[in-house]
């Protein structure tokens, strides 16, 4: 495997870890207002994600940093091209952070309600935006010979040569991301809490399942329809067939485990489902990293990667950093394992 390929997979894995980890706290935010009714329940949800959400979000920053390091040209093109939606993502991330962190500072209904809504709405919108972002990458963007592009928020919601951030395909994937992460968050809330709150979360997860199944099937068909090239890698490398098997097996396990109240199994299966979907997308794209609507301008790992010396040196410190980060996460999640108890620390 060449160095740029290796770094492609490292970034893909980091993004996947980000979506699995931050996905459950985003999802917890998405179901927050309907699952948690009383102040005590809301505090429990926040308590369940409080010590870990920021660490989870660091995976986004670390994946972004690693992307910048390994594929600077890709970072430059995509971040300037997706200027407007990224600015919205930044705002939503900011709102969500203060929604989680500032709520507990003042015990006053008005104050708390404000931050509750801020947290929930920004979580919901972030789920949709991240889905739409992924869809934009899969669908391709109007890159030209300069290697740059600029996408408006929408054009006519069709898939012409001049695309916008939002069209029927990206909205579809955005909705799918919201349903997936809401279900993922529900499994987590059910796992970390219990009683009425846990049961309500379980109910939401069950409600999401048919939608998730239906949207998964539609999205696969739609993706093939708008970009038949996604099948090339699958046709050449049979190992890719593990991806659909993983996706549908995980869905089956979720359907089996959730009504039985086996929260841990459901949560793991939900994580595997997300992993399968994202790795599958990366597998379909490789070695393209940002497809152009006109394929001669595709950005690939070869025309965007940093110098070979830099990539080689990076392997050393990246491996060290990844081992350390893994250690912290295992330690922190162990410290906060088990059901949430109110009555210690914040929230």
């Amino acid at each position, binding site marked *: 495997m060449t160095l740029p390929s290796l770094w492609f997979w490292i970034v893909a894995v980091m993004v996947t870890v980000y979506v699995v980890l931050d996905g459950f706290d985003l999802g917890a935010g998405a179901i927050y207002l309907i699952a948690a009714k009383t102040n005590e329940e809301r505090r429990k949800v926040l308590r369940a994600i409080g010590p870990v959400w920021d660490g989870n979000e660091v995976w986004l920053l670390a994946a972004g940093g690693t992307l910048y390091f390994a594929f600077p040209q890709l970072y430059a093109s995509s971040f300037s091209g997706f200027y407007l939606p990224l600015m919205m993502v930044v705002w939503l991330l900011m709102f969500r952070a203060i929604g989680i962190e500032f709520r507990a500072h003042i015990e006053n209904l008005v104050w708390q309600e404000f931050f509750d809504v801020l947290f929930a709405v920004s979580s919901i919108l972030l789920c949709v935006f991240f889905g739409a972002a992924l869809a934009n990458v899969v669908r391709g963007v109007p890159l030209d010979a300069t290697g740059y592009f600029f996408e408006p928020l929408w054009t006519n919601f069709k898939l012409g040569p001049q695309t916008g951030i939002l069209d029927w395909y990206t909205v579809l994937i955005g909705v799918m991301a919201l349903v997936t992460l809401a279900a993922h968050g529900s499994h987590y809330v059910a796992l970390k809490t219990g009683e009425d709150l846990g049961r309500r979360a379980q109910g939401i997860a069950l409600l999401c399942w048919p939608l998730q199944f239906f949207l998964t099937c539609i999205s696969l068909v739609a993706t093939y329809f708008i970009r038949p090239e996604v099948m090339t890698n699958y046709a050449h490398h049979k190992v890719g067939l593990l991806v659909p098997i993983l996706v549908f097996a995980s869905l089956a396990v979720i359907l089996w485990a959730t009504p039985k109240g086996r929260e841990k199994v459901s949560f793991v299966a939900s994580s595997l489902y997300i992993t399968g979907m994202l790795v599958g997308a990366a597998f379909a794209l490789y070695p393209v990293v940002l497809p152009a609507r006109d394929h001669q301008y595709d950005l690939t790992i070869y025309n965007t990667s940093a110098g070979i010396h830099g990539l080689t040196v990076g392997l050393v410190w990246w491996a060290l950093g990844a081992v350390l980060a893994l250690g912290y996460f295992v330690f922190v999640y162990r*410290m906060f394992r088990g059901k949430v108890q109110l009555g210690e620390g914040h929230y």
Partner: protein
Amino acid sequence: MGLALLIVVLKTIGLRRNDPVYHQAARFWGKIFGINFVMGVVTGIPMEFQFGTNWSIFSRFAGGVIGQTLAMEGMFAFFLESAFLGLFLYGEKRLSPKAHWLSAVAVFVGSWLSGYFIIATDAFMQYPVGYSKAADGSLQLASFWDFVLNRWALWQYAHNMCGAAITGAFIMTAVGAFYLLSGQWTEHGRIFVKIGVIAGCVFSILQIFPTGDRQGQLVTDHQPVTLAAMEGLFQGQTAAPLVLMGQPNDQQGKIDNPLEVPGMLSVLTYRRWSAHVRGLDAFPKQDWPGNIPLLYYSYHIMVGLGTFFIAVMVVALLLLWLGKIFTARWMLWILMLSAPFPYIANTAGWMTAELGRQPWLVYGLMRTEDGYSKSVSAGNSMFTLLGFMGMYMVLGILGLFLIRREIENGPLALNLPGATEAQ
């Protein structure tokens, strides 16, 4: 970042002496650190995005080098800091005192590492080393250690971290002084003043010498035109005077109403009274920093305040040593009112560094006007800039409001819903 250091100091003393007052003090500052940290996280996220969104041509040009430090910041600093801050703030009951102390140390190390990686990135823009040019004109990493251990980065880092420590120390001292002046929580107030004054004195001195002095030497050697603009030296001269005060007049190329120390600038830069210091006239006008008066004032405000910090903290330390500081109301007043000055000095210092680098984005390699995203229209940039200005103002007010509340509630406050039950 300064506060992270002081919290470690408080925790260490608390652990050594097994003194609950120090643990309460650490918890109190931990809460304030938590509020600051949220501010830092939310205002820091746009920074990383900005490299790609607003400075894409620069990123394409220099990303092969500075991507190293930016990615390392994520891998080494952010993970450490965020993972252990959660433990420090929410895990005191679950952890042994030693483990809790260790989580405070981890937060400190994480935040200080983060500082290094970002300064190393800035240092590359100030003084690029360890790179080579690829065929397409972009920069590639040539020597990892030359780049990461850039001389400029080491001194700039030391200088910057002293500034952070001074800020933490002045804020801690000011809160302590406020408690002593108003006669509440005096036991904690004394600890805050004592630790704040000792740290403040040490770091104020280190700020000027050696770190500030060495930083000045680097500017003299590698950015002489910046030095001339900072000092307001329009014409080069031997035995150049140091302008203490005066207003630069760039139309006529002179300082109005100057108050000068003859020969001093030559001594500070070249260590000789008679040395010749090049003025702005020695350089083509297109290489002058764009806004000379602003640069000049930023630099002079920074140095003026730095001198003031030493004066205040040396006197305060003397009073502390004599055992008189807790009753010297005049001194406590000065210490309390000095709280905003480190923020002004830090901002002025960064303005000096960044305005001084102009017109270059990467010194000598890329001009600022060539580095921004051409694909993003000015209207879109303006729209988002205005948005951020508004948002940051709201965040600033919110943060100040919450911190003021914590200070008012005092170090023993159990105002958090969870905390009442935990005690």
